[in-house]
């Protein structure tokens, strides 16, 4: 069974060091919960994990094989859910979903799209165009995407935003099922999501003390 791990990760955004010296490891059936205040780098870490952001230092690997050696294999193994819902206003929910299921390699895209909508408790929106969906419905559609096509590792950035209690419960069930089948999950959150046996990663532990040391040094050199 595969293990996804990162070692000595450093992330730089603009000229700002977001985190440094960060290690993590996710084995089959495990879940990693990213915690930390606003701006501590949860979204950044998830984007690094997805490969959307290159880490400045450090490396990601699957079973010891670095991700840059097999980027296609990495992409085939992950699902990423960000802040944006990628819902086209002129396509119906099922059309939206079928496209992504197809791209993700589902054998019967339309059937699995309908099943996924059902699983998230919104079968009735299947033929409603995206523009008429409420924020919560859009979010459910986006979460349906990750079960419409299979993938080992789910990377979820604040997945429960805009969801009501009933939807959160469904979603927690989805995660438990995925983990029971040997899947892996990394998610960030500000609220409580029930993920029994998950490991917590506090991002603020890796945020550097921010000394202006280097800048001042450079300045002194300039003056000299």
């Amino acid at each position: 069974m595969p293990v996804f791990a990162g070692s000595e990760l450093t992330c730089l955004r603009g000229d700002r060091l977001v985190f440094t010296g960060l290690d993590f490891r996710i084995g089959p059936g495990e879940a990693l919960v990213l915690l930390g205040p606003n701006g501590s780098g949860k979204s950044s870490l998830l984007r690094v994990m997805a490969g959307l952001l290159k880490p400045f230092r450090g490396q990601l690997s699957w079973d010891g094989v670095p991700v840059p050696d097999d980027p296609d294999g990495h992409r085939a193994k992950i699902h990423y859910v960000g802040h944006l819902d990628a819902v086209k206003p002129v396509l119906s929910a099922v059309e939206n979903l079928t496209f992504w299921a197809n791209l993700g390699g589902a054998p019967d895209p339309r059937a699995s799209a309908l099943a996924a909508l059902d699983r998230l408790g919104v079968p009735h929106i299947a033929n409603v165009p995206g523009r008429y969906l409420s924020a919560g419905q859009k979010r459910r559609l986006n979460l349906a995407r990750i079960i419409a096509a299979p993938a080992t590792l789910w990377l979820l950035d604040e997945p429960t935003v805009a969801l009501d209690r009933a939807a959160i419960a469904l979603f927690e069930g989805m995660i438990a099922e995925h983990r029971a089948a040997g899947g892996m999950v990394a998610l960030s959150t500000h609220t409580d999501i029930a993920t029994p046996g998950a490991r917590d990663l506090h991002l603020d532990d890796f945020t550097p003390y921010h000394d202006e040391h280097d800048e001042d040094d450079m300045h002194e050199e300039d003056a000299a």
Partner: protein
Amino acid sequence: MTRFLRLVARDLRLALRQGSDATIAVMFFVLCVVLFPFGVGPEPNILARIAAGVIWVAALLASLLSLERLFQNDYEDGSLELLSLSTLPMEAVVLAKTLAHWLVTGVPLIVAAPLLAVLLNMDAEGFGVLVLTLSVGTPILSLIGSIGAALTLGARRGGVLLSLLILPLYIPVLIFGAGAIDAALNGLTPRPHLLLLGGLLAGALPLAPWAGAAALRQALE
């Protein structure tokens, strides 16, 4: 491959449902050409003399303006991010979106062009070559434009900036496109010009998706 075609099909469907993207590009093309008789004066032989050039310049501008939003919507709603994480290579994504865009906006231009040629009093000998050059030339315009659209993604003042970047690169297409028509009108063979246009297309076909994909990757960081 089938996923490539799926993406093309989705973009076509979006364009058709969204309504009038195609119509607006072709209407801009027509309006732009129609301005010239007002600016230059209505003398038929002058108009005929400049017809090829004017139609080509208008095609350039129309293609430019409609390309502005090629990746914009997918970028803003997060689809582009997801596409870049799919197993479809980024180059294929760029190519698919460019192809769909050309089908929606380039083909109507080709259809409308002979009409405008009549309007500008162009000799009938030129019509065939006009359509031919546009058929080879507008895909090149779409390809080159896709690089610009990717580069200016997320920039302030997208539209005008795009034109500044892309118009210089369009110039060779314009030269050979209008040149072929002029040659035909003057009784010469347009073959060399057409061959050069074909060469440009052959060059742009691998280069533009590569550059566009590189630019998109930068934009998504």
